[in-house]
Structures are given as structure tokens and as C-alpha cells.
């Protein structure tokens, strides 16, 4: 039972504690990836874990993402629960075949006789002034792929619980970490039993509101919370912000309930709008809330261009202003 007292942890640290907890409680849990050992990962998410759990459970692998995911599948078939770290979003693509053709489909192929409890951690999104391939938002590639769970944490508290839930989940999970939020702190209750945490598939209303629903996940959760505050202050608009958390499957119920109430909806993500996750949300919300909608669901996101050079990324990324602009536009219908 929770002693109630919480500690302030950065998101990166919260993940580290969550991984530690999983390694502690289940001897089958393993971590594998590039530089996850002595270095503790380029974001220090696995800091100290190899020292404490040994080289057999925290494994520095050869530099090959397909190899990492492919061998993780084999380890899972042997009864292990591998947690693969992909160093940056842009480097998951060499593993696409193993993820889409094997990891996602093997349970189906086996008529449910095989489970592949593999978690693939991917630091995603931009805003850290990085070079090319270090600021991608690949979530929809995986969301469209049946057989995978795709989740994204928005703050340290969720990071701590969701990573443990993902590892405990018998399905393969693509676990997206908002890299530019790694260093942001939040209260984390490390004493609360994981069973009491909000289930992995559930969205969370992070700001209650009545005029418009703002849906987001990952790095933009905080931005949207700030946008809600700004909207209220600027023109008394009550924005309900929902952190989707689960991108596949979507928590359609929570979303529909909110939109039925507000009649307006805006989706924000960093990935390009074109054929992005926002499209699925917009289409689904419109089907479910057709008669409630005062305006079409608007999507605020990245442009239909590759991720630009970092000196101009602030213009590419949806910021508070662009999100508010989207909110305003839904009221012009």
C-alpha cells in the first residue's frame, strides 16, 4: 500500500527506477541495447543497472537494431522479458521488419500459443537541438501495425508506472519516451502498488474543461496543459486536456465522452499531420460524435516535410501559440 509520500524525480530517473523495480521483481526481465551498460544509455535511463544486475541481464549489444529486436524475440520465446532500448527514434527503422513481420505477428501465427512480452523503448520527438534522425516521431507506423501496443508517457509519474506495466504486459509494447522531457521533474509515488496505477490502455484527463477537448500525448502533454491555462486566462475558454497515453489501442470511450461534452476537439502531436495518428483520432471522433461536433476535429502537428535542421525546429514543432491558434479556429466554425 502507498505510504502516500512521493519523491520528485526527473522523467529519466523515474524510468530508471521503474526498470530497476521490474528487474528486481522478475528475474526474467532483461535490458538490451546499445550503450545501456557502463554508460547507462545516452540519456542515462539505464544508469547503474548493469552494475547492480550484471552483464547477463543488462546487455550491451552489437550495433544492430534488427539484431537487438530479433534476438529479443528469441529470448522472449525462451521465457525472458527483454526491454530493448533504441537509442534514438530515427534508428528504429532497421528493426522495422522484425517488429512488423515478427514481433507483431507471431502470437497470431501461433494461434495464441506464443506470447512475446518484449518492450521496445524509444526516446522520441524533437526540441533538443539535435542533428538529423534524432527528433523523429514514428508512432503511427507502429499504431497501424496490428499486434503491437503503442504507449507514450507524458510525465515522470506515468513513466514510472507505465514502463513497469509495459514490461509486465504479455503483448509487445512500443514504449515512447518524450526525450525533451527527460530532465523534467514530477512527484512520483514509488511506494504505491503498481496494481493501483491507471491501466496501461487508459487515457487520462489531465485538465478538466467544458468548451473544447484537446487531445495529445508524450512531449506535448505539458505544452497542452500550459495552453489550457493560457486559453482560460486569455479569453475564459475552458479547455479539457486529455493525455492519450495509449496510442494503440486508443481509449475511445474517454475521448468520446469528452467530445460529447465539449462539442469541439483539437489533436496535437509532433509527427507530421499527414496520415499521422491525429487522422485516426479525428476520423474516429467524427464517427462517434458526429451530432455533437460544432466544428471539425482540427489537427496541429508537424508538417509534411522531413524534420528540419534544429535551428528552425521551434517553428516546426507545435508550440503553445500554434495549439491555441488551433483551439481558436475550432470556434470559428
Amino acid at each position: 500500500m502507498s505510504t502516500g509520500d512521493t519523491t520528485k524525480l526527473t522523467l529519466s530517473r523515474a524510468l530508471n527506477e521503474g526498470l530497476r523495480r521490474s528487474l528486481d521483481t522478475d528475474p526474467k526481465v532483461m535490458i538490451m541495447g546499445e550503450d545501456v551498460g557502463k554508460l547507462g544509455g545516452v540519456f542515462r535511463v539505464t544508469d547503474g543497472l548493469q552494475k547492480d544486475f550484471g552483464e547477463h541481464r543488462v546487455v550491451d549489444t552489437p550495433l544492430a537494431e534488427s539484431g537487438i529486436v530479433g534476438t529479443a524475440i528469441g529470448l522472449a520465446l525462451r521465457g525472458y522479458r527483454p526491454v530493448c532500448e533504441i537509442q534514438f527514434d530515427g534508428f528504429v527503422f532497421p528493426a522495422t521488419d522484425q517488429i512488423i513481420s515478427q514481433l507483431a505477428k507471431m502470437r497470431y501465427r501461433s494461434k495464441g500459443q506464443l506470447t512475446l512480452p518484449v518492450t521496445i523503448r524509444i526516446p522520441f520527438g524533437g526540441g533538443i537541438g539535435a542533428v538529423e534522425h534524432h527528433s523523429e516521431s514514428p508512432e503511427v507506423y507502429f499504431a497501424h501495425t496490428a499486434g503491437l501496443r503503442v504507449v507514450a508517457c507524458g510525465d515522470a509519474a506515468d513513466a514510472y508506472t507505465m514502463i513497469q506495466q509495459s514490461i509486465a504486459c504479455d503483448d509487445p509494447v512500443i514504449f515512447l519516451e518524450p526525450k525533451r522531457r527527460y530532465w523534467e521533474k514530477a512527484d512520483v509515488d514509488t511506494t504505491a502498488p503498481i496494481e493501483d496505477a491507471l491501466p496501461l490502455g487508459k487515457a487520462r484527463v489531465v485538465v478538466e474543461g467544458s468548451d473544447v477537448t484537446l487531445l495529445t500525448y508524450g512531449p506535448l502533454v505539458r505544452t497542452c496543459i500550459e495552453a489550457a491555462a493560457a486559453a482560460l486566462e486569455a479569453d475564459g475558454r475552458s479547455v479539457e486536456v486529455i493525455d492519450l497515453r495509449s496510442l494503440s489501442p486508443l481509449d475511445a470511450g474517454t475521448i468520446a465522452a469528452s467530445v460529447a461534452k465539449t462539442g469541439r476537439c483539437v489533436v496535437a502531436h509532433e509527427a507530421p499531420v499527414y496520415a499521422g495518428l491525429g487522422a485516426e483520432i479525428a476520423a474516429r471522433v467524427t464517427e462517434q460524435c458526429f451530432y455533437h461536433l460544432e466544428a471539425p476535429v482540427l489537427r496541429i502537428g508537424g508538417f509534411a516535410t522531413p524534420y528540419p535542421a534544429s535551428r528552425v525546429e521551434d517553428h516546426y514543432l507545435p508550440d503553445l501559440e500554434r495549439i491555441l491558434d488551433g483551439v481558436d479556429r475550432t470556434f470559428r466554425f
Partner: protein
Amino acid sequence: MTVELIQLLTPEGERVDNPEYPLDDVDIKGLYRDMVLVRRVDTEAIALQRQGELGLWASLLGQEAAQVGSGRALSHRDMAFPSYREHGVAWCRGLDPMKLLELFRGVSHGGWDPEEHKFHLYTIVIGDQTLHATGYAMGIQRDGAEDEAVIAYFGDGATSQGDVSEAFNFASVFNAPVVFFCQNNQWAISESNERQTRVPIYQRAAGFGFPGVRVDGNDVLACYAVTRKALKAAREGQGPTLIEAFTYRMGAHTTTDDPTRYRVASELETWKLKDPIERVKSYLARGGEADGSFFEQVETEADELGKHIREACRAMPDPTPLSIFDHVVAGENAIIDAERAQFAAYLDQFEEAAR
């Protein structure tokens, strides 16, 4: 480099001794029986495809020795990761051939329990399974299971896939107990070996830091002995071995393929002289180890097997429409549930209408 080919039984059926590969206790008659029976499975399956009972079949004709020899070298605790043509290995592992027919009929994507017979599901994406095998072997290391090893099957064409090289490297770096068994049947659909590699395939291993050996893939005794030795080395912590079984795909790539478009008939003729089954038969006959009654008995067995396969195949029930939604995920998934419900309702309309 001189290419040496390990052979213990010549095409003419003469035993060749090789001190490195002693053959003590091997049950040659059993191996003969296995090969005859799996060839029959293959023949029946091809016929069933012609009759429209199967959607496709990938024939193992000509590769019986490579598959039975390596398959029988496995201990009951060893794990095998096949590609899609390893019907002979499946047989040795004790998997019901009907399970294979299920897949090629289109009734399932496999659906057997890999752990039951220590035989993983068929993998169709070329090379992918070599990484699964390597990972499984890394698990064996972590379990400290010294009496287990893994064997990964793949073809000559597969050696070009990046994943296979990554598997070689992971296995080598982690010294994983896995044997890479490459059936070089000379062809990757219409592409011959020189489209895939400039040097003999077994030589690929050295560059990754482990031994490679080429064995006569039509010699069941050599395949048995070489595989057994490699598995033993793996179990004893000596790491991976690459075995190149030099053989020939005597049939089409699959039932949809037409080899006359890309290879000459004479090639097949020369390889027929190296038939994996014939040489064992003449060895057994000549040495008097088996008499006519044995061969007859195996034939009868084959006939019965064939009959069973023909009947059982036609009797296979089709999956139900709603089974499409089964076993996608282990946990809850509201999206799938909603789609299933909607589709069920949709199907009911027709039921209604039918009434």
C-alpha cells in the same frame, strides 16, 4: 582456399570413413525410412496442391538427407528454427505433417506449439528466424542449460540478408550455442549461387569468428555426423558453427514456380545421380543390412501415410470468419473487440436474411 566437402557415404553408396566424424550408433535404416516417408509427404502435398486442396507447397525434394540427417542429430532438448521448407526436420521432431499442410492449405499461418516438439513455427520472411534462434540460444546461456543447443535453418539465398549476418555476429560475440544450418540447394527461386556470393558459403563464418564447414547435403550420414558434432560443440560452450549442406532443389521453388524458365534440365539429371535416398538404399542392400522385406515395409508405410494425408487434408475444416479476430493480442483491446462485434452484427444480417 580449397573447398573440402565432408562425405561419409558416396553417391554410389560406399561408406567413407572420416576420423573427425565417427559414426558409431547411427540407425541407418531409420534414416532411410525417414527420408522415404518425408519424400512421400512431399509427393502427396504436391499432388494435393495440383488438385486445389493446398494453396501452395514448397517441395523438399532432393533435400531429404540434409533435413533428416541434421534433424536426427538433434537431441529432444535442442530447439529448431526452420524456414519454410523444413518438412523433413519437422518429421524428425515429431510434428504431425498435417500441421504443415494446414499452413499451405491456408487454414492457419502455422499454429502449432513450438515448445511441444521443440520445433518453431515456419518463418517465411527470409532470414528473420536466424536472429530468433540466436536470441533463444542466448536464453539457454542465461538458463545455464548445458544440455541444450539451437539449430537455425535457412537457404543459400538467405545468406545475403543483413539479418543473417547480424545473427552470425550476435552468436559469435555472445558465443551462443546455435548451429547455423544452411541448405545450399543451389537456387534462390531463379537465382543461382553466384548471384548471392562470390565464395563458398561456409567460408562466411570465419569472417565472423566461428568455424564453417561444407558437408555433402545429399549424404544423410555426413549431415548427421557433422550436425551432431556442431551441436555438441555448442552445448559445450564452444559457440556457433555454420554448416553448409551442399545439396540441390530437385523440384520447383514452390508449386507456382516454373524452373524451365531459368535452369537447364541436364542439371537435374546430374543431381539425380546423387539422390540422397538411392545411395542409402544401395548401401543397405549391398551390405545386407536390409533385405527386400524392409524396403517393402517402408513402402507400405509410405502408402498408408499418403492415404492418411489425402484424407486428413480434405477433412480439414476452414476457419470461421470471426476467428480472424482471435489471438491478435494477449490482453484487452477495445478496438479489436469493437470491430469483431460490428462484423458479427454484419454477418448476422445475412443470417437473418437467410431465414
